[in-house]
């Protein structure tokens, strides 16, 4: 047997610091060519997070392309089609760590045609860097991405005013854009917005503070990324647990074991807790909770565990455990904001498959309440045709009940996707408003926010 077992001393050497570092997931956003990929490249390059062979490759390819500056965007634009066209098509994930933090970066495309990929990258982020080309200022795609970031409930936004080298690092121009964006963002729900003047191409205020912006008092971008407060973005108040699968070993050692496997979506569960299985409403007591490292005294989001109960109840995939005194809404009617991805427009009389937590059900569209005018965030109630990249508010009725919370209370029990029955493509992403968002004054002219 030619395998080696690590010695005890090897494990003792395991880097405690590395293991205890926290994690920030962030995404880039903004219009095409605003410099998102260049910025990520610059961030990695200046923080020395690029391996030598990758760098050599980059230098070689840059030269082959006949470009003068090292093309940092190629670090994330890895597909052949992306390199040919010089644009990002699909989200690229990059990983890096500084002594302070670990980062998962999603570099997303700015092109409107690939908005679905931007949403993919942004849906799991705690922070978004929205880039704005200093020459162009706030444009429609800036608004669309900012609105999506707000809908998704991304709590932190850094607005990076880029290509400052092309406007002579002008303080006046920077302030103009800050004012422009702030005006637009006043209608969004983004609790924390910071502005930084940068040049992704030349590295100003990316990793190191630039001496070309003496008028700027704040820190460089990396400093912000390393210090922004990341409380958990999980809900630890309302206990929610969706069953993925039931574990039944059927062997002698464990012949009575029946574990409900799933991921905690909210709150805290402990052995002895009185739970209720929904939608049936059957009560039970938690006997034990099994995590990846053995039995647990408590489980919280986003832990993957298996729960055993004190009695046999009929529960299976798609059902949800909550506590007797804290339950989600069980309903077949949902009010939600929807972000549409398919070239085939949303069919107002259409049937779709809806996937919510671990539950899949057919659903029928009952109404399109309005479509959002991306530039003004106003509700459009006359033309409610929702096409690709549009955002609107809908009412759907599902074939079986769902256990829901508003998205702003719980990202997991408050979100769903719509799937085309015939192509199986994911055609829309939904953020649930109801019951909280449903009682907005009908005169309110601005769009609802699914997020925070």
């Amino acid at each position, binding site marked *: *047997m*030619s395998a080696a077992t690590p010695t005890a001393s090897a494990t003792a050497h395991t880097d405690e610091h590395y293991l205890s570092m926290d994690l920030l997931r962030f995404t880039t956003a903004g219009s095409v060519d605003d410099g998102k990929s260049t910025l990520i490249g610059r961030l990695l390059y200046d923080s020395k997070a690029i391996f030598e062979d990758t760098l050599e490759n980059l230098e070689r390819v840059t030269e082959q392309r006949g470009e003068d500056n090292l093309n940092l965007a190629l670090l994330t634009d*890895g597909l052949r089609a992306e390199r040919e066209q010089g644009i990002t098509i699909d989200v690229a994930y990059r990983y890096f760590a500084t002594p302070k933090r670990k980062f998962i970066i999603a570099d997303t495309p700015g092109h409107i045609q690939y908005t679905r990929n931007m949403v993919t990258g942004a849906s799991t982020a705690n922070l978004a860097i929205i880039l704005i080309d200093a020459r162009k200022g706030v444009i429609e795609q800036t608004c669309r991405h900012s609105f999506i970031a707000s809908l998704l409930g991304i709590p932190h936004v850094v607005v990076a005013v880029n290509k400052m080298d092309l406007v002579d690092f002008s303080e006046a121009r920077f302030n103009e854009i800050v004012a422009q964006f702030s005006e637009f963002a006043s209608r969004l729900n983004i609790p924390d917005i910071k502005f930084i003047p940068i040049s992704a191409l030349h590295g100003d205020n990316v990793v190191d503070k630039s001496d070309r912006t003496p008028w700027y008092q704040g820190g460089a971008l990396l400093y912000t990324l390393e210090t922004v407060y990341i409380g958990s973005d999980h809900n630890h108040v309302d206990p929610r647990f969706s069953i993925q699968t039931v574990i039944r070993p059927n062997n002698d050692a464990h012949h009575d074991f029946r574990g409900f496997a799933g991921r905690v979506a909210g709150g805290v569960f402990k052995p002895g807790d009185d739970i209720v299985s929904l939608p049936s409403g059957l009560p039970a007591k938690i006997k034990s909770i099994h995590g990846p490292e053995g039995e647990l005294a408590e489980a919280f989001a986003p832990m993957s565990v298996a729960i055993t109960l004190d009695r046999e109840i009929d529960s299976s*995939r798609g059902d949800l455990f909550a506590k007797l005194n804290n339950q989600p809404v069980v309903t077949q009617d949902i009010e939600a904001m929807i972000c549409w991805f398919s070239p085939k427009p949303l069919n107002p009389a259409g049937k779709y498959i809806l996937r919510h937590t671990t539950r899949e059900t057919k659903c029928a569209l009952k109404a399109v309440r309005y479509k959002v005018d991306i530039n003004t965030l106003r509700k459009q109630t006359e033309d409610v045709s929702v096409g690709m990249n549009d955002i609107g508010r809908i009412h759907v009725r599902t074939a079986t009940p769902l256990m829901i919370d508003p998205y702003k209370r719980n990202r997991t029990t408050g979100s769903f996707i719509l799937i085309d029955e015939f192509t199986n493509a994911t055609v829309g992403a939904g953020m649930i408003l109801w019951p909280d968002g449903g009682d907005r004054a009908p005169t309110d002219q601005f769009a609802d926010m699914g997020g925070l």
Partner: protein
Amino acid sequence: MSSYNLTHLAQLEHEAIFVLREVAAQFERPALLFSGGKDSIVMARLAQKAFAPARIPFPLVHIDTGHNFSEAIEYRDWFAQDIGARLVVRYVEDSIKAGRCQEEKGPNPSRNGLQTITLLDTIEEFKFDACLGGARRDEEKARAKERFFSHRDEFGQWDPKNQRPELWNLFNGRKNLGEHFRVFPLSNWTEMDVWQYIAREKLRIPSIYFSHTRRVVNRNGVLLAESPYITLLEGENYEERVVRYRTVGDSTCTGAVESPAATLAEVIQEVASARVTERGTRADDKRSESAMEDRKKAGYF
């Protein structure tokens, strides 16, 4: 509230287990692609945890090029037996004999690309509808673009320009007849995370990951192990070097790195200060700028 925090390694572990369970729930006939390499060992460990105390509810599948390192093959067989899993092995050799594909020519004929054909045939044979792979996004620029649930058409092809959106943790595994999915539970893990996890879990790994003496030939900067499948070119010699492997694939295209790292702690130290990428030792990626993307489009792992 602040006590409800998980370290990043724990977050990755819980995420991977969630993905593995989704695969068991959403598919009828999943398989776990197991090579005996470190990533697939970690993935298999996570699968054990995901379904404990029951057994892993799908077989381990290995596509054997016939040019694999014997240490990895021995490990593979030991591991499957140790955890009581069903092991399916299919051979590139058989695909060649059956005329399904042709051996490459030249001094460095690699069966790495040919694996795709054997893999797709195996998927067809067992009607696998989801194949779990240990690939990580940090490995390579085309992999950086992968979804967790990656759709493959009826020809096993990946269409990177038209991937399904993947929102939050809602994985859409719906497909039409003949199509299948590749699923990557370790998507967000880095090489360092994998090593840290091996240390935390005290996992056994094949000995070639640790420093040893081996006869190798330096070909275009890649240290290839002595084997009957390599023809020495003029001016080339085998020489003894103290090496280890950072990644374990087909022996004709996986290079060794010179290293004195003989314990896990030393390997972790080495990974922490590494200045070239893990796949820098892979001759298969050096073939062209988009070698990986092209292979993946065709149905490679």
